[in-house]
């Protein structure tokens, strides 16, 4: 991950930037910066989705801790 933001936060930021740009009130130089930001965010979001491995699965044990769950998931 390139920064601390979650996928959801990045997606939200992306939506906000593009909505602002669409409103058409952004000065040209700022608009071009924002356009580039949005393109980078979109790329990061897509990569994050595509590169994610399997989910992390944890099972609550009797002693109240979590251990890796190795259920018959692929059975």
């Amino acid at each position, binding site marked *: 991950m390139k920064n601390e933001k979650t996928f*959801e936060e990045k*997606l939200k930021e992306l939506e906000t930037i593009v909505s602002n740009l*669409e409103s058409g009130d952004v000065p040209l130089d700022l608009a071009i910066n924002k356009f580039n930001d949005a393109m980078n965010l*979109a790329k990061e979001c897509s990569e994050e989705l595509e590169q994610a491995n399997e989910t992390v699965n944890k099972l609550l044990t009797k002693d109240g801790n979590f251990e890796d769950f190795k259920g018959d998931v692929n059975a």
Partner: protein
Amino acid sequence: MNDKYLTVTQINKYIKYKFDNDVNLKIVYLKGEISNFKDHTTGHLYFTLKDEKSRILAVMFKNNAIKLNFTPTNGSKVLVVGRISAYEANGNYQIYVEEMLEDGIGNLYLEFEKLKKKLQQEGYFDQAHKKPIPKFPKKIGIITAPTGAAIRDIITTINRRYKLVELYIFPALVQGENAKNDIVEKLNIANNYDLDVIILGRGGGSIEDLWAFNEEIVANAIYNSRIPIISAVGHEIDYTISDFVADLRAPTPTAAAEIAVPNIIDLLNYIKQIEIRNSKAILRVINKNEEKLESIKNSYILKNPNNLYEAKYQKLDNLIDKLGFCITSILADKNNRFLNCLNKLETLNPINTIKRGYSISKVNDKVITDIKDIKKDDVLKTEIKSGTITSKVIEVEVSK
């Protein structure tokens, strides 16, 4: 002689032999109502099964009785499976019960309806109480049996759709007498973690199998959960109290997983769309700026810069005209006043007075206007129309 006579023991043994050799009595399915129920300290259960017209003794030994998922009482309608044999010591026959279930589909249905109505009236199903299911959960709790189709379906479905989550599995009994307590306990434990959503459920089964999800304490635990809950019990046709109380009902565990997480393909498409919107938006901003520039370049003033001065020229001309007019009128005014003065001067000129026959007398070039200006022996110069007379004053007489 006495040989003809059997002992009681002998006949009872024979009768028992007959029972035990009858294949029809080796496994018997029986339904009836419990009466004379005795729960012996040894753990064995003794009772009578009856219907409207008839009754039969029944015994259920401890090893089978401990498997019961309900507490039988007098009046319970039950379904039993067992064999029928004779008890030699008492000379009676009875059913040796191996399994016993509440004959309760009808009863259970009534119970379900009763609880549903009650909870509905108490507001347990109110839409206003339902918590929203987050769109992008990071941590999902799963309360179900740790083995079986349900957990497998949930995990594989989530992995197929969206992998950016951690799954926390809280293994729970999902059927049997202890299931309700275990589910409540796991719901409470799960609420201690910062989960975004909980999937609570199990795979399909009979109404009895699903019954834990129709228990009031489970309904309470769901209602009081801090974390939103998706209920997914059984198949699509199965509705449980849990489904009504939960923040969202999913028809199956797989469907619950589909609801809990977004689909990666939808998301990627959505991001693509945003990219397209982004490109269109920046093009629009650029076009707008170009148009603005163009319209400034085409503005009337920039196209006809002369207009900037023409109006000023005209104004300047007006001012010059005005100035000329002002000066002319001032000069004319001055001229008039000069002529007036000349006239006045003409009128007042003493020469003219002399011309009319008057004279002016001076002493030492000073005009005499008063008798005090002159004394005896002064030389007096008198100007008249055609010359000047010089004379000497003989006498000065002041008028009275």
